[in-house]
């Protein structure tokens, strides 16, 4: 085996970016604009998917995509990580609870206004920080909207479900739940469409479609 390429021959390894489809290139570009690492993760996933001589290529590609999906929200200013742990918060509450007169006096005295406010703040923190998977998904994808506005909740809910399904597929596949190439490609396309529809919207094409639907309902 030669230790160096033969200068007279052409390089054989394809340039990763030229091997991508136009839509893949577009999505890589958008993600790289946010952070180079994000673009590299997507390229890595696509290249892993293409390495069919690797028996774990779908698992590795899924792993890259799962990582990408997990890392996207902060780059779109979506805050999903809690500002503190619930254990810490509850511990603080417990100390203050023990100082309440009703606890010290073992009576039925009313809670102090200060403690009630503290309780209120705790539950508000909990709502804001300990997100369900669905809330996390909703918060993330709402940040993809170029207008900065949120979709109506029922529609946002549908989109969150779609996003979670995509994510769940790649999480499962990354953990070596077997999937076929066709299944992988279907879910990859779903991911690509989901992202590009939001980050490179074809708003007026959608408006044309909506015009047609309105016409159908009102003609």
């Amino acid at each position: 085996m030669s230790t160096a390429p033969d200068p007279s021959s052409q390089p054989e390894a394809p340039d990763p970016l030229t091997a991508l489809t136009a839509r893949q290139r577009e999505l890589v570009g958008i993600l790289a604009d946010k952070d180079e690492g994000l673009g590299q993760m997507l390229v890595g996933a696509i290249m892993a998917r293409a390495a069919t001589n690797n028996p774990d290529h779908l698992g590795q590609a899924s792993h890259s995509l799962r990582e990408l999906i997990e890392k996207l929200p902060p780059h779109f200013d979506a805050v999903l990580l809690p500002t503190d742990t619930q254990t810490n918060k509850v511990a603080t509450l417990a100390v203050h609870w023990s100082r309440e007169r009703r606890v010290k006096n073992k009576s039925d005295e009313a809670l102090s206004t200060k403690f009630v406010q503290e309780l209120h703040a705790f539950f508000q923190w909990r709502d804001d920080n300990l997100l369900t998977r669905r809330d996390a998904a909703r918060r993330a994808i709402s940040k993809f909207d170029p207008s900065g506005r949120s979709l109506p909740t029922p529609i946002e809910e549908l989109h969150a479900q779609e996003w979670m399904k995509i994510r769940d597929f790649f999480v499962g596949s990354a953990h070596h739940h077997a999937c076929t190439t066709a299944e992988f490609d279907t879910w990859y396309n779903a991911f690509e469409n989901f992202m590009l529809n939001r980050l490179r919207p074809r708003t007026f094409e959608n408006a044309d479609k909506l015009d047609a639907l309105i016409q159908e309902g009102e003609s």
Partner: protein
Amino acid sequence: MAKPDRGLVKRVVATFVNAEDVDYFFDNLTSPDWIEPLADENLFAAPPPPVQVDGGFQLPSWSAMRYLARMAAEDPKAVRKVLWVMPETDNTRVRYDYLDALLSMPPGMAAEFVPRLVGWLQGPFRILLPKRMAQLVGRLALAGFADQAIALATALFDVQVGAPDQTTTDEGETIDWPVEVHSLIDEYQYEQLLMEALPNFLDGTGLRGFGVLTDLLARAMTLEARNPPDDRCDYSFIWRPAIEPHSQNSIPSTRNAIVTAVRSAALQLVRADQVNLAAVVAKLEGYSWAVLRRIALDLIRVSAPNRSALATERLTAPDYMYDSDLHHEYWLLLHERFSSLTPEQQEIVLQAIKTGPPVYDDQDEPYQGDADIGRKAWQARTLAAISDHLPPSERAWYDQLVAENRLSDHPEFLSYMEGVFVGPTSPLNADQLAALSHEQLLEFLQNWDPEGGWNAPSAEGLGRMLESAVKADPERYAEIAPTLAQASPIYISSALQGFRNAAAEGRVFAWEPVIRLVRLTLNRSTTTGPISVETESDAHWSWARSAAAHLLDVGFNNGPAEIPFTFRDAAWSILRPLTDDADPTPESEVRFGGNNMDPSSLAINTVRGQAISSVVKYAVWVHRHLEVLGATPEAAGVDRMPEVRDVLDQHLDLRRDPSYAVHSLYGKWFPWLGLVDEPWAAQNVPNIFLPDEAHFLYWEAAWEAYISFSRPYDSTLQLLKDEYHRAIDRLAAQSPERQHPMLSWQNLASHLMVFYLRGRLTLDDELVQSFFQTGPANLRAVAVRILGRSFYTIKDREALPLDPPPAEESVDRAVVLWESRVAAAIAGEEAATYAPELVEFGWWFPSPAFNPEWALIEITKVLRLVHSVDAGHLVSHRLAALVSAYPQQTLEVLDLMMKGPNDDWLLLGEEDVSKILAAALSLPGEVREKALQITHGLGARGYRQFRSLLEVTSPNITPESNDSAGA
């Protein structure tokens, strides 16, 4: 005809990608048939809540509610059904559209929602709602839903009071200030909405509705009362001098708005014969508050027929006549209706006046001792109402009271506020003054004696008139100027001020007599001191000296009205004494300086300060004339004018003149001192800009004055380079709040950049390095902006080239500096700290002086680094001019701008963006695709107006294939 169903709605929902899709759909629906299937798919189930942002809330609009509001007239039942089950929201923008829907429904349906609306008013979020609610009040009332209209009106127009402000006396006693009611809704809207709602509301609710208003006024009085319920005095004669519209009612307030509404309502009911006058009066007099009883009297005066018992009974009742709270309305009623009383009734009135209110007989009342005077004043005031109808004996009595000065100017009011003071008035107008001969003028100035009194002609007023006259015709008054020295100092200062203003406008006059006037004035003015001296006369002399210094200051200016150089000695002889004036004293500097005035501003408001300023002007005047004369004397600089050197040296010595104000003048005029005598200026830099910390305030006074008033002269830079260094060091040590707002710091940035562009400073120079390394970000940004803005002028958003064009070297220097700042930002750990500087490139980009390729590259870098630029509208204008030559780069910049944190610039830049996109869409390949992306992106942000651009086709695309071009 097809009707939408859930299946179709599901397809619609599947089409939604972004929020704009949803808005587009709802905004384009024209049929109410969608309501039911949309509701079945829960699309009306989640109104968007207010969004908390820094410092407040955003209120998202909701297209679904806008659709319901549009459909409410067509299918009110369907809309009502949806609204009834819709979850509550605090988003008042949604509530606003909700109210629109209710206003479009039949009133009977809308009435069902009133309890919900009342709840809204009791919550904290009311903005946007009152106008619509007021409309609904009227609509409900007219349609016969009086209960609901009254319930809504009561909630909408309710009032409240806050906790009283408190003051603690020197003795430690806490005193509550009187409270005043305020409305739940915007105070400024309150009266307007009350008056708008009133006609329909009363038409529909009659006396019941009127009761809502009178109860509201009574509630307001109860809330304001200091000792309810015993004290029923409402003090309305103070805050509402007249119930009828009157200029005395000058203070708008919630309670005044309610009084106006109650009065209007009463008149409306009576004039429409909806309720009889007696019933309305009875309603008003059912309350004990004076203001409501005053409204009753006013209503009787305006509406009761002649000889009405309602008027007669009240006019002849002493309770009404003697009640001072009712004075104004009783007085007007008496004035208008006395003549229609019978002789017997008139006699009752006259007897009651003769008796007078019992308060003057009460030994415990405050009139004790002055009861007779008080009673006579009251009698004169009351008789004035009927003075035209008095029998001869009573007329003589009235005339006697008037002769005793017992009658006020406005007897219809207990107290009367005069108009706004507009300034001193003059006994002579301009024409009368001009018509006086010299002798007459002098005599008048010497002998006219102001009578005194409110707004009466005064010496100040005459002085102002004289100042104007002198300014208008200085030549005439110069002839008699010396004789004016015999007048009061107030007229002397006015005349000198007039000459100064005339000279400033280039009006020529003889200086010799004017200089004599100044000399005579200084001879008469024996004492000197600040303008705030104790006696009025001293103050006037101080004004006269100050006016003399100001006059000389202007007289030394180069121009047609300049003092002839032959008067050098004469001019100096009057200027010199002024430089010794005591004003400013250390005490007056403390009083007027500090946070009130900076030292250089204080200087021109003092005699000595202005005189030292005039000394510098004198020096430049002498210098200029000696240069013109071409004299080559042995001496140079201030040695050619030793009189100047002595004064300058004297006042630069802090032991002899410790005034910060005077010291600041050496900084203010430093370039001119350098012009007159550079060695003297150089030698005295350490004395003017005192470097040690102990004299920091003197340094600051001189430096601030220098940097604020002086242009960046190259010669000065050489002398003051150390001071620029010191300023930068001290700038870095300033607290942030002192760094930005001060013009002087901005001027420092400006000076440095001008010197840099001229090549007097280089990028490697320690001054420039130090400024950019230690200066605060906002000042660095100012410097960068100044540099960019140096290369064009703006007209109609167009950046026009300078004429003549800037030297290539300065453009190159600017480019080098800019690139160094970008390099620093890229190398720096936190690009955000450079953001204020980098966004300023928006002010560079429009300039035609810079290579467009370079400018496109640099702005792209900026946008990638900090995501926005300033002056986006100017940038887009320039991009529109560049798109045909640089389509890809232009689109790249536009795309990056669109992704920025705000799109305010699109308000002005919309037309240019259209031009850019239209040009790019007509091109093939990647350019068109990029333009499509941007156009759709604009659509996703709600800019639907760009949709028509998609009709633009490129040469390679047939219209049929156009739709799929970007797919």
